[in-house]
């Protein structure tokens, strides 16, 4: 008799709670639904240089600079309000800086990885800083990047291509964001597929191979 009562009360309570809690629309957890939206970034692929800076939340974000603007103010010198370094390459298409003619886009040669990294070292421009982008890399005085592709043994087939970058920075002291800035910039300057590993080598030693995450 007692157990039957308990069972009845249980059934009633269940019914009641089911009716009450099921009423209306409840909040939910975050539910993933489909992929992201792919947007078009201008300038288009061959006419831009991708550099990676660090947002205020610590994430590494890309900026796309137009190739044709690189000559007029290639490093954002006016914003930086400082003279160009004396060893900075002049306008010399043969040196890999491309051409100033926007109408010959298709024939723009690839900007060298070392040049791209030099742009990165100069830090974000004014518009980029305006949205909170900054750099974790030290001052751009002393750097020169030497990029080498075939140093040491060749990688196994199927494995990502490996690039060695020699710099005067003390690479072991760089934080994750700074390393990612260099690595991502170098990786996408080398190959748009991103299938490249980068080894940073400085006067203080060598870091493990890294990819753009």
């Amino acid at each position, binding site marked *: *008799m*007692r157990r039957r*009562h308990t069972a*009845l009360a249980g*059934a009633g309570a269940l*019914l009641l709670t*089911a*009716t009450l809690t*099921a*009423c*209306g*629309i*409840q*909040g*939910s*957890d*975050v*539910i*993933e*639904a*489909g*992929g*992201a*939206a*792919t*947007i*078009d*970034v*201008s*300038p*288009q*692929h*061959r006419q831009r240089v*991708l550099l990676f800076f660090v*947002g*205020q*939340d610590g*994430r590494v*974000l*890309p*900026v*796309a600079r137009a190739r044709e603007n690189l000559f007029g103010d290639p490093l954002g010198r006016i914003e930086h309000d400082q003279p160009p370094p004396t060893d900075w390459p002049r306008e010399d298409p043969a040196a890999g800086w491309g051409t100033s003619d926007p109408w010959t886009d298709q024939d723009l040669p690839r900007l060298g990885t070392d040049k791209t990294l030099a742009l990165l070292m100069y830090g974000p421009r004014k*518009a*980029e800083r*305006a*949205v*909170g*982008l900054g750099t974790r890399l030290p001052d751009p005085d002393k750097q020169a990047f030497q990029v080498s592709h075939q140093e040491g043994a060749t990688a196994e087939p199927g494995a990502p291509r490996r690039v060695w970058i020699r710099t005067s920075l003390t690479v072991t002291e760089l934080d994750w964001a700074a390393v990612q800035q260099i690595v991502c910039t170098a990786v*996408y300057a080398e190959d*748009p*597929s*991103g299938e490249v590993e980068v080894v940073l080598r400085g006067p203080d030693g060598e870091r493990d191979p890294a990819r753009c995450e």
Partner: protein
Amino acid sequence: MTTPDAQAPPAAGRRRRNTTAGARRRRLTRYGLRTRLVVAFLLVAAVSCGTTAALTYRAARNAILEQTQDTAVSHFRDQVRGIGYSLPVDRENLQQSVLTIARQAKPHPWVVFAEYGTMRISSGTRPTSTVLTPELRRTALARPHGSFQRVVSGGTPYLTVAIPTTFKMDETGAGAIRPTGLVFFAVMRLEDEEAEVRAMVLAARDGALPALAVALVPALLAARSVLRPVRDVQRAARHMGQGHLDTRIQVKGGDELADLARTFNESAARLERSVEELQSAEARARRFASDVSHELRTPLAGMLAVTEVLDEDAGGLDPDTAAAVRLISAETGKLAVLVEDLMEISRFDARAAELNTDEVDVAETIRRTLIARHWTDPERIVTHLPDGIRARLDPRRFDVVVANLVGNALRHGRPPVTVRLITTGGALVVEVTDRGPGIDPEVLPHVFDRFYKADPARGRSAGSGLGLAITLENVRLHGGTVRAGNGPAGGAVFVVEIPLRTGEGESTP
């Protein structure tokens, strides 16, 4: 080892619980079978109704929400997809596209928010939303997937959608796809869905109540179909209790209740057969006793005549033979009384005893009885017989009653024996009291039984052993009662009560 003291409190608690459980059981069984059946039926109906409604409601609600969510997410993604931006994102440009997307809302109006670095743009009045949760922002910023979340804020349900944006590294599509850091959010009120869901709840409730009311009809019918056979059995049992052993129930169908009826019928048939056998056996036994008494009567009459002659001549015989002759004579006399009594009892058993009433003066009748038996010694018999009480009685049977009671008192009790006649409230009461040791309480219920021996060791009594039984039958024939008991001063008291019938026309046997 626990001490008895330590065990006592739980035991008391259990006892108390048991009594409350018993009270609850009584409370539940107090309701009739019909009420319990109907309640159980309705309960089952309510549970199944409620469960069905709840499950249907859940499924329908989820379907509504899923459709809205899927539409909103995919449409929002479509709106965001394909827009061109520079990196870093240009504020004016983003503002324009946010407003454009906000106008393309589907399925309901939405407010669009965009987040890039420190830049916060919205299509509404405020650049950021209070509805968007940190979890959604974190998920959208960390993973290149669309995501959504339902949020109830201030009682209003919202659907919040987050779509991060990515871009291709080269035109062929073979290149990598990287997040841009630009994330779009849409906040949409789910008021229509809320209204639809509420309408469903109302519909479920409004549907369930009539369903319960409708369920009452089969519940009552079911209770009726169960209760009708039960009532039949009850009626038959009562009928049978009133002595109609030929009562049978009509058996319909093959269910448990039909089994019950069949069992009842079989039991009734067996009972009827047993009772018939018993009755015929009893009738045979009575007829046998009656026949035996009749057969004994004739030879006994002859023997009585002979013993009388022998008795008279006993004086002339030698002493031993005279004693034997007197013994035979006395025993023959007793045997004759016994046979007479047996025949009287047989007549009662055969319901052949007739009441021949006459209106008599009761005191006079009693006095005549005592004189006829020579019970006139005032030391032994004390009478309180007020004159003028008249009643319709069978004088012969009344004489037997009084003679038996007084004779019994003289034999088993001690004199003086008091005979008192009174009338109370329409009844005639004759009270016979002695001064003896009274009747043993264990014997008291059996004093009117036939041949009952109060003391088994005593063997034969002076009487036939049928005197009080015949008294009882005679009183009953008058429609009265006789009681035996012990008086306050000790001594047996026999009380005869006979309804007073002074009028004419009630002399029927």
